[in-house]
């Protein structure tokens, strides 16, 4: 809590100093509050934590961006679950022209659409919950959704349509231990090996079909356990044991499509996650995808339905170590836009979960309401 207060004071000071300087930084943010209940969630399932019906404030997201003498800076600070403070993004960059921007720092890994378009700020997000497989690393996520490194991007307008591209080079993720959980870490302040992660994406909005956008992305890295990847050996013991080491060469290939015609919007993404186990000399391939359909009624009421699926190879040491579950979820909801800054969403989610470690299967339903705001 003290750390959060210090960071907020620092952030506020920077903001106030900027007000009195010749540069006017504008502090912006997002906030949301929600109620979630999973009335029939079995013990051990992902829905268990909301079986009592939880009111919760979600994420407080503060960000500012400015161009100072042509140097671009972006800072985003996030307070999650009232206690966890993340320096979510910090980039310094330069725009040479439309077709070439350079950014250094911590950014959202350019894989797929959702990860960069709806990373935080639930007011922007069409649904209450993000697809399970796109969860953040510290929330049981399986994809490296943050990277620290160098990012080149640009936009080129051609006769065929507007083409956007991005390419990054940065620290690869590691499997680590944090608060008794085994999670992915983006290696914020140092890499645990010399193998860097590389990724690229490209998309086109073809002139011939208005409202359509198609994109592909690819990500390569080597993921290993770091020295913190320890697990409780005994509930009564202070001594932790290291987990079985993981060393995989990971290749993620993604494809995305979005299409809007009149009031109807379609969006979908597919990921193939191939892990080559360097210890057992074996290879595994898993997949994850979602499809989202929305319908806008006078830009006020937006009913939606989303189908998502995550199927992990149950022998893949990467997923076994992270304790990943196979998930199939159907979400249906209604969004009401109070104005351009605020919305209320109601959602029902039907979940099927299979724990690939314990082989348990669970089915449950969740109900959620969320009020989100941009300020």
């Amino acid at each position, binding site marked *: 809590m003290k750390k959060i207060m210090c960071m907020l004071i620092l952030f506020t000071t920077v903001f106030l100093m900027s007000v009195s300087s010749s540069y006017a930084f504008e502090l*912006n943010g997002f906030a949301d509050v929600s109620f979630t209940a999973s009335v029939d969630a079995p013990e051990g399932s992902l829905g268990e934590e909301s079986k009592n019906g939880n009111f919760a404030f979600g994420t407080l997201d503060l960000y500012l*961006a400015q*161009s100072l003498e042509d140097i671009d800076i972006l800072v985003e600070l996030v307070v999650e679950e009232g206690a966890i403070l993340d320096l979510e993004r910090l980039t310094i960059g330069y725009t040479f*022209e439309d077709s070439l921007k350079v950014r250094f720092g911590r950014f959202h890994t350019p894989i797929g659409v959702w990860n*960069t378009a709806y990373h935080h700020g639930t*007011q922007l997000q069409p649904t209450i919950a993000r697809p399970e497989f796109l969860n953040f690393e510290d929330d049981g996520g399986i994809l490296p959704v943050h990277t620290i490194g160098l990012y080149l991007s640009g*936009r080129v307008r051609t006769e065929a349509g507007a083409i956007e591209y991005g390419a990054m080079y940065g620290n690869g993720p590691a499997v680590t231990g944090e608060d008794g959980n085994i999670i992915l870490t983006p290696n914020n302040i140092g890499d645990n090996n010399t193998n860097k992660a590389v990724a690229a994406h490209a998309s086109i909005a073809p002139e011939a079909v208005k409202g359509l956008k198609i994109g592909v992305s690819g990500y390569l890295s080597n993921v290993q356990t770091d020295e913190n990847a320890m697990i409780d050996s005994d509930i009564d013991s202070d001594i932790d044991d290291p987990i079985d080491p993981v060393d995989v060469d990971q290749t993620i290939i993604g494809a995305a499509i979005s299409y809007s015609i009149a009031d109807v919007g379609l969006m979908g993404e597919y990921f193939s996650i191939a892990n080559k186990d360097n210890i057992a000399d074996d290879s595994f391939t898993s997949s994850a995808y979602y499809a989202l359909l929305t319908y806008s009624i006078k*830009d006020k009421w937006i009913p939606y339905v989303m189908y998502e699926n995550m199927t992990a190879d149950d022998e893949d040491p990467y997923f076994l170590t992270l304790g990943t579950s196979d998930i199939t979820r159907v979400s249906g909801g209604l969004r009401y836009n109070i104005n*351009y800054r605020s919305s209320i969403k109601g959602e029902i989610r039907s979940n099927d979960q299979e724990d690939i470690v314990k082989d348990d299967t669970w089915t449950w339903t969740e109900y959620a309401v969320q009020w989100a705001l*941009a300020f």
Partner: protein
Amino acid sequence: MNKLRWSFVLGLFVLLMYGNAHSYAREIAIISHKDYPSGTITAAKVKEIYLGEKIAEGTVKIKPMEQNDESIKKRFIEKVMGSSVDAYKAYWIKKFFQEGITPPTAKTSSSDLIQAITQTNGGIGYVWSDDVKGDVKVLLKIDVGN
């Protein structure tokens, strides 16, 4: 003779109505700093600039500006951007957050905007055509109706 007289009156009436309609039609002028690398611009490019999709003209950074005056701002957003004011504002919340691209800088009046553009390399903005003055370049005039 009676028919001829009525035709004359009707013709005069139509001409008056036509002239009246045109006298109230207003134009928005897209203006820029005098050293802006291009002498003209298309409406499509104006839209790209005000959506933050086009941020440089060659190597010159474009600095788009807009007006706080709701009458011209609303007309510009609806007629040039093809959007509602709320949708435009919502778009910029998203764009700013996702890409860190700052929205057009708001100026309180046409004269403030013109003054800022004359002092800003890469500056671009919109004013009513009648308000254009000073050392700026007119890149495009757009008829935005009555």
